[in-house]
């Protein structure tokens, strides 16, 4: 047989394709990871504090302790993701050597570099990055991201920012599909994005070159359905699960809602008597908008 090619763009994007229609859950220890897997999560994000706690505690938020990540890897059979600070390629090298399945270069942690994101092509492990608009998404893809998620506003339990970001991205995707070929140069300029990626979107009928997931503020099954209907292909749920009254039940409800997002009967069934959702914060009450980190 011919040679085996590892770490190709198709192999990196391939894992994201397999997560579609699923829920990736933030977990801070092995016990939560088990609850997430039991509830049908397609992957877990291993971190020391969920965004709601990072927001509350303040200070510098960094990559998690490798021992914690290792413990979670040994506990579950599903993919394990972990976060690095924006631009912190040394943290990424550590996670790659630990064979983490996906690295999230995340605005939830405190940025390490104010000029450069990680050169993600240099890694064999795939990266997911957040975006608030299409230009930001394409700059990340240009740097090698194999999966894009909306940033939303992590740790708020408020879905409004994720909706804004998804609508902005999908609306520009549709406009590029409908644009004339001459206009694509203008789009590349307007978005500050690589022309080749804009041309690729135009050629493929308005699809992002990598999968588009939603993150930031999902707290209920209805939230999950909303963002799937707005064009997300899977959901990251952070504080929304383990900051609620009954995490195991809510986790499972959001899993079912993400699959059957078009079926109100399922949404009724999974939403009934679900217990308390996380309290949530209004955007005007925020001291710090995490989505402003990165560019």
């Amino acid at each position: 047989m011919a040679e085996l090619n590892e770490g190709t763009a198709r192999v990196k994007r391939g894992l994201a394709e397999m997560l579609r229609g699923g829920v990736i859950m933030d977990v801070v220890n092995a016990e939560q990871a088990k609850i997430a897997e039991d509830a049908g999560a397609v992957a877990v994000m291993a971190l020391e504090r969920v965004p709601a706690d990072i927001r509350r505690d303040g200070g510098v938020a960094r990559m998690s302790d490798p021992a914690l990540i290792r413990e979670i890897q040994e506990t579950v059979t599903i993919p394990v993701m972990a976060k690095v600070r924006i631009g912190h390629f040394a943290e990424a090298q550590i996670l790659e050597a630990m064979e983490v399945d996906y690295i999230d270069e995340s605005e939830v942690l405190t940025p390490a570099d104010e000029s450069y994101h990680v050169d993600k092509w240099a890694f064999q492990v795939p990266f997911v990055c957040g975006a608030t608009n299409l230009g930001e998404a394409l700059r990340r893809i240009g740097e090698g991201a194999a999966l894009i998620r909306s940033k939303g506003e992590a740790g708020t339990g408020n879905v409004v920012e994720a909706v804004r970001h998804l609508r902005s991205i999908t609306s520009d995707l549709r406009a590029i599909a409908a644009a004339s070929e001459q206009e694509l140069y203008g789009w590349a300029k307007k978005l500050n994005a690589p022309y080749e990626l804009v041309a690729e979107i135009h050629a493929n009928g308005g699809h992002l070159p990598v999968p588009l997931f939603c993150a930031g503020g999902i707290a209920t099954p209805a939230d999950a359905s909303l963002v799937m209907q707005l064009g997300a292909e899977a959901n990251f749920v952070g504080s929304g699960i383990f900051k609620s009254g009954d995490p195991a039940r809510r986790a499972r409800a959001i899993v079912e809602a993400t699959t059957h997002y078009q079926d109100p009967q399922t949404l009724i069934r999974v939403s009934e008597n679900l217990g308390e959702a996380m309290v949530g914060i209004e955007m005007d009450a925020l001291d710090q908008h995490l989505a402003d980190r990165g560019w």
Partner: protein
Amino acid sequence: MRIGVLALQGDFSEHLAMVAELGWRGVPVKEAADLVGLDGLVLPGGESTAQCLLLEASGLRCPITEELRDGLPALGTCAGLIMLSRTVIGGREDQWSFGVLDVAVRRNGFGRQVRSFEANLVVEGLVDVMRAVFIRAPVITEVGDKVEVLASVPYRFPDGTQVQVPVVVAEGSLVASSFHPELAGDPRLHELAFGRSVGRSIADIVSTLDEREERYVGSFQMGDDQTQEGRSG
């Protein structure tokens, strides 16, 4: 022909595209009512643990088990292979499978994502090579007497010893692969799995496949270009 594609979680849209490319009607399957009148069923890639839970929650586990036992032709890729298998190793304690394909598989047997790979593969009966994309792929560790092995790849143990492991298998009305032909846009395993069910012989199917050969060669070269972005392992 109406080919159902289990559409609970995973890369079912790629499979629906393969079915459409072959000129068949693709039916996304999300509940038992969607199974009516199908000529075949695709079990896509994804996370088998999540799919197990969703199959039960959606009331699909029993009706699909019955259909498969009654001989509904099926194709399973990656997680779909796991779902068809008799024995699943390295799964959750409560992990179940339809148990209709007489093989044992080890989940994520090829390793974590950094060990995922793509390669050109010779599949028995197909003239041209197939670009095979393996994502945290399962390893088939045992095959029953009635199972045909259509393709294999080398598997390296940590101690350096190497064996050939099956990656495409067929038994009765079932075809399954450890990799994702759909991620490379190659519908030939779909044609093998479902073409047989309308009374066409393998030889017939293979001759149609030959006519399409040129097109696939084109797409493989595109795939090879992409690989330059990554490292060769």
